[in-house]
């Protein structure tokens, strides 16, 4: 028997998400002020939602997982970060279908990806 029981899920091939500011600006109709508001809202809300995702996985709470992922996906919609949006979408599905193990993997990858995104957005906030 292998000492490593879960070889195929040894970790996400996760990397920090990159942000396409031009595409995000296009998504809000070229409104710089609105984009700044969207970014500020995301910086405030997304860490809370990630915490909720972790809590949902920890307690096998499918509905919390689905709701938090749905909210996160909604916030990512305007920001032009397709990898993050896709991860949130998969998490929402995992919540619906109860695939908690897959969800744990996705949350880990999402958290790693968001670190870079948060840093980038913080630097750009208000510019």
């Amino acid at each position: 028997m292998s000492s490593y029981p879960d070889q195929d899920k040894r970790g996400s091939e996760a990397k920090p998400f990159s942000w396409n500011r031009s595409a995000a600006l296009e998504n809000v109709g070229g409104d710089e002020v609105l984009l700044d508001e969207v970014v500020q809202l995301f910086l405030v809300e997304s860490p809370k939602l990630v915490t909720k995702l972790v809590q949902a996985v920890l307690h096998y709470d499918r509905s919390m997982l689905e709701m938090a992922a749905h909210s996160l996906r909604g916030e990512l919609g305007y920001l032009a970060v397709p990898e993050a949006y896709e991860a949130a979408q998969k998490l929402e599905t995992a919540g619906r279908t109860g695939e908690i193990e897959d969800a744990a993997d996705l949350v880990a990858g999402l958290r790693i990806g968001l670190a870079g995104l948060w840093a980038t957005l913080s630097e750009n906030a208000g510019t």
Partner: protein
Amino acid sequence: MIETGIPWKRLTLEIDSRLEAVPLLGQVMYLVCTAAGFAPVEGKLVQVCVVEAINNSIAHAYQGDPAHGVELEVNLLPTQLIVDVWDSGTSGDVAKMHADHSCAFEVHSDRVEDISESGRGLAVIQEVMDSFEYTPGTERNRFRMIKRRDLPQLSQNRNLE
């Protein structure tokens, strides 16, 4: 006697203080957890906590400066997994670190700076790990996380899967 199949009790790894380097340590942490008998879901959550702690060191102790080092030290005891994240940057506020961060689930403030500590990691760590402790030092700061190893119960759960 608890048989883990792991030929080591202590593991140390060091990375540059760059966010891009963090995923590798996270993946190592997941492997360590599964090899130590934790369920995959628990391993993933511990991975998230380690990523949170390392990111905090990079963001707060080094203010994002990549020219430093962050060390991950893992000690595996029969009933505990002890994970230490070491940095040599600016020390954090111990009182803030050790405060109750559960409010991060329902933060009422809409100011980014108000949730910079609790919202970005400590609440997650407080939720997943059994305990954590921040110890600032004159040369190095240590962020310690402890997760209980309840191996008989884990084995029983696995048999039910």
